[in-house]
């Protein structure tokens, strides 16, 4: 036993073997999602050529962005083994607050950014307090704040709606800065890249993963767990606030039930799951959620374009979600990815032999 270990030990530690780049890439969820999204897009376009028109591609990308930014934030909370149901009214409050000001006093979009972020940070921090210090399970805490924040959204609206935004806002929401690349895409992409780097390559991000993977072990490894958990909810709220601003710019209107109306909190959780993040914490990432938001938007639009009644949309979200969860469950059971399994079925590939011991 110890003799075999010693010889294997030299091999393992002296020449660390990493899986080849191709299989490492295929094992990840993100490239898979891009391929599937393109496939759906291609199929739908083949059936209905106008689906691939320039304006429509741009529209699809733009209309995915509010969801994408919410999903990126939701993913951070999912990584700490939490859930945030209140992102819908947070988005709504930010959308109507900034929208009304823009409607009344014609301010620039950028000048509203601090307000949107501040709303999100404040409301997200409150969620974090409930979860971290009051020790209320996140699903209950944020269900509670979902209702409270929804009430606040209605109070702010006071039976008005945002309908007449300044031209500069409308233009930003509808124009492309390159063919098929809408302005709205920029904040979504920037947020996703920034969060991906922060999560993967900063101390804070590593603490988020460690906390989600095993909170007790993280505490014992010297991580300030309360600060980490509360910051996750704060960041999620902040991004929901940002998404509110993006939403009002992109859609051009907002009202008392903006956000809740399309259950964006459930769509965001679905994006997290489809993108490879688990509800059990410590696993996944925001890039997958970003692509999942585009995937979901394209798939649902595709359903309509393909002539299927739009009432099937929510069933469609559910089916996609279940498929993603099934893939996850399969990978967890088998300890390998679907692509690896496919290749081993097709022959030629053997999974790395794990060491057998103790």
């Amino acid at each position, binding site marked *: 036993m110890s003799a075999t270990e010693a010889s294997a030990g030299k091999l393992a530690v002296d020449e*660390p073997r990493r899986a080849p780049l191709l299989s490492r890439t295929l094992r990840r969820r993100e490239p898979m999602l891009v391929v599937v999204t393109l496939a759906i897009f291609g199929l739908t376009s083949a059936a209905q050529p106008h689906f691939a028109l320039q304006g429509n591609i741009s529209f699809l990308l733009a209309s995915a962005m509010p969801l994408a930014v919410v999903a990126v934030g939701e993913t951070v909370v999912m990584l700490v083994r939490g859930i945030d149901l209140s992102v819908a009214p947070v988005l709504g409050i930010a959308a109507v607050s900034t929208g009304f000001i823009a409607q009344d006093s014609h301010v620039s979009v950028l000048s509203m950014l601090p307000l949107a972020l501040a709303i999100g940070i404040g409301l997200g921090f409150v969620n974090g307090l409930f979860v971290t210090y009051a020790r209320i399970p996140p699903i209950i805490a944020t269900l509670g704040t979902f209702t409270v924040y929804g009430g606040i959204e209605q109070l702010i609206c006071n039976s008005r709606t945002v309908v007449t935004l300044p031209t500069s806002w409308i233009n930003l929401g509808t124009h492309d800065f390159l063919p098929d690349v809408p302005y709205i895409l920029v904040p979504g992409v920037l947020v996703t890249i920034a969060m991906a780097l922060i999560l993967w390559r*900063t101390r804070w991000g590593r603490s988020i993963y460690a906390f989600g993977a095993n909170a007790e072990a993280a505490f*014992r490894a010297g991580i300030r767990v309360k600060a980490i958990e509360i910051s996750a909810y704060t960041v999620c709220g902040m991004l929901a606030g940002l998404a509110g601003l993006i939403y009002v710019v992109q859609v051009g209107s907002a009202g008392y039930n903006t956000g809740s109306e399309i259950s964006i909190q459930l769509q965001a959780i679905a994006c997290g799951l489809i993108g490879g993040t688990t509800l059990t914490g410590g696993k996944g990432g925001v890039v997958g959620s970003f692509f999942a938001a585009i995937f979901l938007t394209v798939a649902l639009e595709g359903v309509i374009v393909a002539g299927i009644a739009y009432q099937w949309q929510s069933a469609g979200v559910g089916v996609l979600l279940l498929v993603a969860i099934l893939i996850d469950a399969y990978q967890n059971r088998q300890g390998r990815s679907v692509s690896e399994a496919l290749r081993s079925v097709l022959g030629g590939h053997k999974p790395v032999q794990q*060491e057998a011991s103790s």
Partner: protein
Amino acid sequence: MSVIVKRARAAAALASDRTAEEYAPARYEARTITKSFGGANALTGASVTIEPGEIHTLVGENGAGKSTMLKVMAGIHPQDSGDLVLNGTHLRGLTPRTAIGHGIYLVPQEPSLMLTLSALENLFVGIIPRGSMAFSVDWKAMESSAGAYFQQVGLHIDPWAPASQLSIAEQQLLECARALAHRCNVIFFDEPTSPLTAREADVLFELMRRLRERNFTIAFISHRLEEVLAISDRITVLRDSRVVAHFDNPKQTSHRQLVEAMVGHEIAVRQRRQRDLSGAEAVLELKDLGAPDGAFADISFMARRGEVLGLAGLVGSGRTETAESVFGMRRASGTVLLAGKPYAHRSPSSSIESGLIYLPEDRGHNGVFANVEVVRNITAAFVPHLPKRGQLLHPRAEVEVAEKAARRTRVVAPSLDVPMKALSGGNQQRAMFARWLLAEPKVAIFDEPTRGVDVGAKVDIYGIIDTISDSGVAVVMISSELEELVLLCDRVLAIYEGRIVGEVTGDEITLERLGAMVVGGGASERD
């Protein structure tokens, strides 16, 4: 048919003497069972035969495969290969439910009762009798028949009390009663005595002997070798997932023979190191440390530079609680001095910053991130000091740091990119050592550092402890394995019921001496 008649019949059916005796005495064989979890073999071609009317004990170190064997035989884990044969009949696709149907019941290590339900419901769970209407529950029948089962196991409790109100010992007896209520005559006890006091254990042993007289087939797991030798009719020893020895006559077997079979010989040949460290400076000092909940009190000791200081004691004696208080995980009164300076506002993060580290005893819950890559498990406590490029961590540099640390503690892994759970217990522990050595400790507290690791890893871990103590780290070692305290420590303190009851140094550290001290007796007075 009247309701009353129906109910009487149901009660009679439940309470009748149609208990286990009506079954033929059961000879239960497990043949060449192999079982692996996530790539690590828990059982490799292991065979055990349990005869009716015997108490057959499985012994072995943690992780040897004892529990897995009984869980396979009780249908909890399906085996990868091998056969289960009950009185000549092959049992295929065994599940806990079908196992009970064959009369096989496992009393688990931690009682698995439904704590919010009554003792009565727990007793009959799965076979709750139906009442006058097909969907109702016949409470009267349950109540009238329960007494017989409680009596057989020596339980005197209110059948309507929720199980949460029962002591651990009572919960275990209730588990046994459940086995009888389900008409089982093959009963496995998976380490039942570890949470029990000596007197409670005696009650359980008395029950086991009575069941043996009734020709039951009984398997037992325990780490307490004295009780194993006293109660067993036969002993099977497992080591590293294999059956390595049988003892058919425990009365003629010595404690030493059993231990040698369990651990192999590698450890026995290690020699104690003779070092005189009485002049070295104290780096960690505890003065009158006490826990608010009374888990420990008046704990005062110091650990010197380069010293290996053992803390001996029984499970629950307060050793872990003391260590966690020093590390900053729980509140305590009293003073801690680190390198001569008072260390008051303790927390894991500030402890690590000041060079005090603590390797927890429960590796699975408190140490590893099971689904996370080995690299990141190793660097987890070192992230603030990892090389950076600008504001961002440098992934390749991190891998180099982790590889260097892994080489130092001889981690064996297919690659450091695999999740931690793919490694064996021994290699996970080596990786945990790599994590904590990265923090460059001045004081290292190791809590049960060799629990659940194989013999090879044990030897490596002893080597690591030798090396770092030679380099000047003060090591505080908590262990329930007295042998390793004898081998490794320069000085040993014994803790009994939350207090230090003795101290031995150098050649005074012997198995006999420690064995007496941990149960509160035979201690040399401390000055």
